[in-house]
């Protein structure tokens, strides 16, 4: 959300990506400016056209596609409750109870399924789930892409 993610230190990535030999290895044209994690030019000139994704989700789910909405539950930029209420507001009948899921013998979060869409929390993780809960995130990813149990 925005040009400079709050409280995130991306110095190491920026230093590595801006090395001349790295840019060459990645086939980056010389004329391009240095890499930064977020762009003021884009963020500052961006027009949001959707206030909600509800209609888009309903169309996609009606085509039989699968969806996963997951949230690290300590994030305040896009908090888990907002997405949980969003999924519930789609009006699709729940097909499981709200229940915990286990990773490495510990409760890793909670989930509930509504037909083809799953809402899932990752306990204790922030906005970037794979960064702050890499093990549970991989487990969640594997379950979703293989359509297996959480």
């Amino acid at each position, binding site marked *: 959300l925005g040009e400079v993610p709050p409280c995130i230190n991306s110095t190491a*990535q920026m230093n590595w990506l801006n090395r001349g030999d790295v840019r060459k290895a990645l086939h980056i044209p010389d004329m391009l400016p240095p890499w930064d994690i977020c762009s003021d030019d884009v963020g500052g000139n*961006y027009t949001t056209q959707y206030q909600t*994704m509800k209609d888009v989700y309903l169309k996609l789910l009606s085509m039989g596609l699968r969806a996963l909405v997951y949230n690290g539950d*300590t994030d*305040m930029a896009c908090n888990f409750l907002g997405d949980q209420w969003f999924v519930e507001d789609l009006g699709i009948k729940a097909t499981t109870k709200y229940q915990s899921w286990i990773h490495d013998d510990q409760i890793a979060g909670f989930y509930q399924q509504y037909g083809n869409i799953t809402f899932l929390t990752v306990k204790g993780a922030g906005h970037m789930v794979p960064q702050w809960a890499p093990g549970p995130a991989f487990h969640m990813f594997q379950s979703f892409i293989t359509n297996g149990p959480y």
Partner: protein
Amino acid sequence: QYVPDETTHLPGMMFKPNYRQWSGYLRAGPGRFLHYWFVTSQSDPLKDPLVLWLNGGPGCSSLDGFLSENGPFHVNDNGATLYENKFSWNKIANVLYLESPAGVGYSYSDDLNYKTNDNQVAADNYAALQSFFNKFPNFTQNEFFIFGESYGGIYAPTLSLLVATGPAKFNFKGFAVGNGISSFALNDQTLIYFGYYHGLFGEDLWHDLNKNCCEKGTCNFYNSTSEDCKELVYEAFDTVYESGLNAYALYLDCEGHSRFHRGYERTMTHLFKNYRKPQQSHKFLNRGPSSVS
């Protein structure tokens, strides 16, 4: 596979990867080129799914996803050497990281015009996907998923709709959104409850919020017309985003960029869009700007 883009050696890589990788450009539209970085699965590239990963912003780079979140290697703090990520998502999937839209990271537009919007980004990403499959035709058979994080909560579903209904045929199976913005109203509304029940506000503010923003048991923290409600919501917003807390992870320290970096101020303009800092915002704050540095 598209040989010219293959990356066979990376500075700082002290290990031999057991997957292949390509880095180059995909055509997103007239004069618009998106940088992509594609890593094959460490298991069975021909059979494993293909996953597109999009970070949000809007305006932030998916290379943060690669190098800090789920990519096969990350950068050591020295900014020079790399280490392997044992929880990399390319252990079981082919993963395509796309810096989108043009202007983000190493993506660019010939005319340097980076003004864009949700529907244009979706169209550009759809064109870039077709450009990808032209370079890697083998992967059109693989099951295909789209992942978006944060503002990618808008990017992923809108692109998914084009993929699901467009002329190009992909083996598209589904999409996922991580800590995504799915509804601005619900995001704002719930943040007030999140803040109170995580102990970020006291009883006085909570009482005032209920008194000025709620009626007959229904509360509107999103677009109330009451000036007092707006100022109280702004005070709550102030606590969450500007008092020194790590807005991305409540129980982690705030590291890296200072919170008061100009970009940070704008970072949160996509939230609480209906509330702008009231003139006498310190009326409720009865204190100066936060002294936490």
